[in-house]
């Protein structure tokens, strides 16, 4: 087994084996569930970091499952962009699962091992999605992750099961559309391997069938990505889920679907048929811009903290959509870095929400008055993560915005430029209202200082520290990993032809 295959397998298999292990031992030793989860995520993280190192400056890692080489078999392939994403997934998962134990005690008293097993399954599937080069394999991992997500959301109290069912319906429709798109592509090219399809497409004449296939693929992934107006499932799903689940799903799932869309557009279609892209990317950019505005405005109107974060996620996915639609290196780099920046910050924010539920039991925004006296460190972390969402330097959120801005200018899209720049004020609006409530309104009852326990506080602190560190050190992921990924270098070639 070569080093690269070992790395890729470790990234995907470690959480999967962990899930199976939990199920195997859960009856005898329920306490072990958390340790197994964290360890498997750490193994995945180790693999991810090795992949990051291997993919610097345009390197890639490849593996053919079962030794069947592409296009006959299923191939896994990680480039700079993929490496960044698998590191994000493993990192956020580790932090969330460390946080999970105490949080689940307050939100989900029974069946904790089941939760951990589902969470690991989700992580394994997301890692699979991020590393695969095969379209159908992507579908399988997409559905596995979605099923795990439905389960994780559905175990929350109250309306959670209804929210999860709605998510299931819409999500499965999306996955079905994606599968339909794969059917079209398979019928036309006879292959399921991404790079192979790209080659085959180059030789095909333009046809409506190709465009329809692309449309189905895009819509299916757009549903999973919660692009406006396909975002309806998101607010309920994120608000009613247990906070740990919200952190995991809200931080990761939509981003990996966005990555899949990125791959479909630029690895599969762009090399051979880039003239097909403009109708899709134009619409994507337009919808992304609307999503930014609508998501932010809806967030302002929310009284529940988690619902506000959910609408904020819709807005930030708009950024990623706009970045993908721009089709130039800066825009796509900005989109990918925003996946990281938003993933870390939003997961941290959801973890803080979980901490608030743990300590205070309620999540109305008004209930957060005086939070800084009860949980000063968590509140500080909240401020940092919020600043990243607003886009204030030196947090990571500013730099992803910077690259997106440059991408808009390069593509000559003044309208998208204005939306991205102006969104700072929109994001600031709802977060600053939150700050005003926390810092400047007096709570009804005075509570003494009661910070979160260490296992909850550490992930929150690490998450917010990461937001600033990723910002200051952004040149490493952005310039050595993302910008040098082969897909982007090829874009530059295509553009100059």
């Amino acid at each position, binding site marked *: 087994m070569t080093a690269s295959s070992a790395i890729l397998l470790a990234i995907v298999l470690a959480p999967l084996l962990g899930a199976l292990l939990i199920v195997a031992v859960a009856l005898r030793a329920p306490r072990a569930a958390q340790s197994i989860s964290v360890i498997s995520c750490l193994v995945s993280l180790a693999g991810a970091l090795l992949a990051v190192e291997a993919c610097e400056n345009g390197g890639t890692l490849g593996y053919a499952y079962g030794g069947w080489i592409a296009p006959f078999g299923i191939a896994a392939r990680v480039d700079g962009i993929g490496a960044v994403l698998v590191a994000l997934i493993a990192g956020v998962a580790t932090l969330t699962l460390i946080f999970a134990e105490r949080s689940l005690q307050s939100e989900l008293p029974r069946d904790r091992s089941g939760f951990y097993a589902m969470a690991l399954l989700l992580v394994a599937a997301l890692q699979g999605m991020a590393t695969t080069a095969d379209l159908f394999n992507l579908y399988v991992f997409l559905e596995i992750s979605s099923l795990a997500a439905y389960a994780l959301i559905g175990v929350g109290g109250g309306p959670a099961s209804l929210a999860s069912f709605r998510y299931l319906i819409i999500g499965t429709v999306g996955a079905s559309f994606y599968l339909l798109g794969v059917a079209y592509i398979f019928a036309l090219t006879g292959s399921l391997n991404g790079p192979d399809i790209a080659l085959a497409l180059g030789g095909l004449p333009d046809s409506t069938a190709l465009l329809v296939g692309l449309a189905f693929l895009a819509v299916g992934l757009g549903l999973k990505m919660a692009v406006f107006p396909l975002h309806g499932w998101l607010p309920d799903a994120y608000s009613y889920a247990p906070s740990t689940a919200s952190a995991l799903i809200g931080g990761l799932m939509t981003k990996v679907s966005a990555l899949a869309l990125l791959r479909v557009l630029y690895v599969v279609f762009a090399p051979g048929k880039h003239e097909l892209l403009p109708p899709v990317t134009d619409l994507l950019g337009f919808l992304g811009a609307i999503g930014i505005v609508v998501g932010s405005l809806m967030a302002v109107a929310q009284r529940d903290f988690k619902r506000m974060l959910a609408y904020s996620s819709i807005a930030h996915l708009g950024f990623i959509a706009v970045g993908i639609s721009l089709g130039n290196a800066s825009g796509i780099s900005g989109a990918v870095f925003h996946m990281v920046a938003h993933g870390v910050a939003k997961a941290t924010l959801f973890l803080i929400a979980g901490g608030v539920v743990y300590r205070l039991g309620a999540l109305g925004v008004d209930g957060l008055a005086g939070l800084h006296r009860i949980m000063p460190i968590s509140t500080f972390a909240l401020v940092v993560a919020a600043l990243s969402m607003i886009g204030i*330097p030196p947090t990571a959120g500013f730099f992803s915005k910077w690259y997106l801005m440059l991408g808009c200018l390069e593509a000559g899209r003044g309208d998208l430029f204005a939306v991205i720049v102006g969104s*700072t004020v929109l994001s600031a609006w709802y977060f600053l209202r939150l700050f005003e409530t926390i810092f400047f309104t007096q709570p009804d009852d005075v509570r003494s200082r009661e910070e979160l326990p260490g296992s909850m506080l550490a992930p929150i602190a690490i998450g917010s520290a990461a937001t600033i560190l990723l910002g200051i050190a952004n040149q490493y992921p952005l310039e050595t990993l993302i910008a040098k990924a082969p897909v982007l270098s090829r874009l530059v070639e295509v553009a100059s032809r």
Partner: protein
Amino acid sequence: MTESMLPWAAVTVPALAALLIARLDRSPNLRETCTLVAATALIACTLPLLAGALGGAVLETPDFEIVPGVGLQLRADRFGVVFAVLASALWLVTSVYSIGYMRGSGEHAQTRYYASFAAAIASTIGVALSANLLTLYLFYEVLTFATYPLVAHKETEKALVASRKYLVYTLSAGVALLAAMGMLYAETGTLDFRAGGIEALGRAPVLTQNLIFAGLILGFGVKAALMPLHGWLPSAMVAPTPVSALLHAVAVVKSGVFGCIRTIAFLFGPATLAASGAATCVAYVAAFTILFGSVVALSQDNLKRRLAYSTISHLSYIVLGAALLSTSATIGAVLHLVNHALLKITLFFCAGAIYVTTGCDRVSQLSGIGRRMPLTMGAFAVAALGLAGVPPLNGFVSKWYLCLGSLQAEHPLLALVLIVSGVLNIAYLFPIVYRAFFESSDDFGDLGEASLSMLAPLVLTALASIAFGLWPDGGPRAWTLAQSIAEATGQ
């Protein structure tokens, strides 16, 4: 250029102080000591930077590339050093004053106050010493967030409304800055401040140049209270007086003006601007602000609001000086940046002392107070003379250069504006002095001067104004610095 970490030290000292102060809620004396020690340490950091700039060995930090071609970098060049030394010296003075004020009026949330103050100073020093627009933007936005708790300090409905207004204005300004910064980078690939401007910018299409210039001036103009972007400043007077004194007469507003000068002289340069005529536009907006601010000040009964409009007016003196693009005008602008700070802070200190001692905040209530608080009102009178531009005060020196600069730039109308404004200054400040000394009332009973920790700073700044009027090149050698800045950035 000499490499040194001292500029980072200058930013880190107040930042660390902010964190430390936040932990010292239980021991107020220790907390106040922390502030004073930090302020002294900051002066100890900025004075070597000043010496370096004067001696020709400009200290700059190692470049830390954070975006391709642009890094997080601080450089203590002559212009930056002026602002940095000013801010650090006045922080010490204001801290002493704050102690007296906050304890004298029994204010709540003092820890938050001192910590936010330190954070605001850290950001201001960062703005002052930034070597490029991106670093400046970073500290500029952090400044907004550091000053927000200070504006909202009283937590009353009025304070919250004022703080929201402040944020809306300043964050929108941030958006304009961000857009302009992005376009500038896309056009030239650099964001460095260079005396005389970035050459590549002069070669860009005129529309792009104008958009970038408009964005930057709009962005900085909000904090610099150029009309009609000034709306946040009078409302922000709801904050405690030391906040109004240092931040809204010195740090925040001067950051805006500082940014305008950096834009005009260090990003665009006189050659580029003369070609497009954009600077003349700004000059006339500034002139309008000077007059309009002074006129509105006449009608304000609330003392701090009157001073606020006076600030709006005087900030545009500085912007006007920069926009005139002539050597003397630039000297006048830099000098007025310093002089106005000293004079205005004196006035605000007096207003605060009066408020703490008597509870009065309206001009109409101040009859006869000069008998009871002669030193305070004496300092007020001195500062009023200085703002009006009467020799031998420092205000006269900067005004002289500004008028000279208007004539040099062949805009004699603007010199007239400055003179008219001087008259208006007398019109809105002298009635206060007259009323204080020459009218009598029995309202003030046995009240005496404010406590020493409030009295000493205001006397000190008033004396400093006289001293710098007599010896403009004394102490930190502001005049020499101003002149070399004007030469370096001139045509």
